[in-house]
């Protein structure tokens, strides 16, 4: 299991434990984290699992996947260099303690 922290726009934090191999989006949905919708289930088709990777973790989560840039164009909130679709971030032991920030809105 790896530890994962979601920071809402108002600063409130939600900490969860999630199994390795799952995605940040699936972990959020499974734990009822408000602010990650993940409507398409990880098919990179809806842009409702947008998150901002905490700066301290950006190197470790790696670059965006093929097609992710295009889909992020569809995100409801502002897209920054730290923006990712959380369905494309797979949890590994290396990401234990990962912090991601949630956008104002997903829909």
């Amino acid at each position, binding site marked *: 299991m790896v530890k994962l922290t979601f920071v809402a726009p108002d600063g409130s934090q939600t900490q969860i434990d999630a199994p390795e191999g799952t995605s940040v989006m699936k972990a959020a949905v499974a734990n009822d984290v408000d602010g990650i919708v993940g409507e*398409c289930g*990880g*098919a990179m*088709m809806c842009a409702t699992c947008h998150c901002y990777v905490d700066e301290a973790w950006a190197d470790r989560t790696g670059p965006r996947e093929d*097609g992710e840039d*295009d*889909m992020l*164009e*569809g995100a409801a909130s502002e897209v920054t260099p730290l923006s990712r679709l959380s369905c494309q971030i797979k949890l590994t032991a290396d990401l234990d303690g990962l912090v991601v920030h949630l956008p104002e809105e997903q829909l």
Partner: protein
Amino acid sequence: MALAPLDTEITLDQLTLDPYPIYRRLRAEAPVLRVASARRTFLTKAALTKLVKDDPILFSSDDPNTPMKPAFRAHTLMRKDGDAHLAERRAINPALTPKRINSDWGPLYEQLAADYIGRLPRGEVVDLFATLCGPLSARILAHILGIPEATDDEMQRWSQRLIDGAGNFGWRPEPFAASDEANDQMDALFARLAPQRIAEPDGSAFSVMLTAENPIPLSQIRANLKIAIGGGINEPRDAMATAIFGLLDKPEQLAEVKAKGAWSAAFEEAIRWVAPIQASSRLVTADTELGGFEIPKGETVMTIQASANRDEELFENGEDFFVFRDKNPHQSFGNGPHHCAGAHVARRTVGKIILPMLFDRFPNMTLPDRQAVQWRGFGFRGPINLPVVLN
């Protein structure tokens, strides 16, 4: 393991008139059921419908042998999987993003909504389904697609003929004759407009697809536009009509929606309550198992998202329209690779522009007779009339 039970009593007429009591029973008694009249295996629980949509390898959309192909005169992205689907989907996506909608198109949509709402008569019974929901949906879509030269009537007629053709599982000649005529008219319009959309790119779907760096073939550009016409009018129309009905039928909720500006929540609840697209088909590509029953390769399963949206495991009092639910994980836009490409457009136009504007212009709108509103549809569903008094 056994095959799913076989039902020979449920009729398509029953499902068209009112499927919800049937789905409620099936969720409790037979969530995996082979329904003889539909020649499909119905899946009525949310976990199963989601599981199927999320696994496009095992549950394929790729089926060139449906009436959709003659109806659209094309094998469309709706019925493709993998890279073939992705290439065509990505070609149209840029025209449908929130950024495009908000920054480039928002003012136009506001204006169109204001025009159509502004011409509605006050103080008399008016059928909003026919005068607003259908025509405004058609007009907005015509602009998104880059074919505003088409009239509201043409857009709605083409859409209905494509739908009727695609649903012509009896392979009767008349629906295909009607869809052929619509295809001829659409193809002629596309051919006429293409040079302009290339010469003066305008961010519309047609323009974006034609001027892409590596454009998809013209035949597929046409097919994509037709899919959007067939699938982009009924849904916002029915979502709008359902939301208006729900709010007028529950004045205390309408008051709270107004007070809180909760129009988006009202939109989401409307499409949960009565999903404009109620059911979808997937072809089973390998022997598998669902809900404890054997599902053989070659079978067609039907995900009934209309039922998933009222699943007791996810929704308290799911049969009721209730805007202020804590969570609303409906499946009305589907999930998986075929997740509705128009979801962002629908949420913004219907939820954020049209509903608040309509109730602002007519703060004392009433539904004189809720029994007069008729609901129809098995595959697609919504009111087919909506008589209200505007004040």
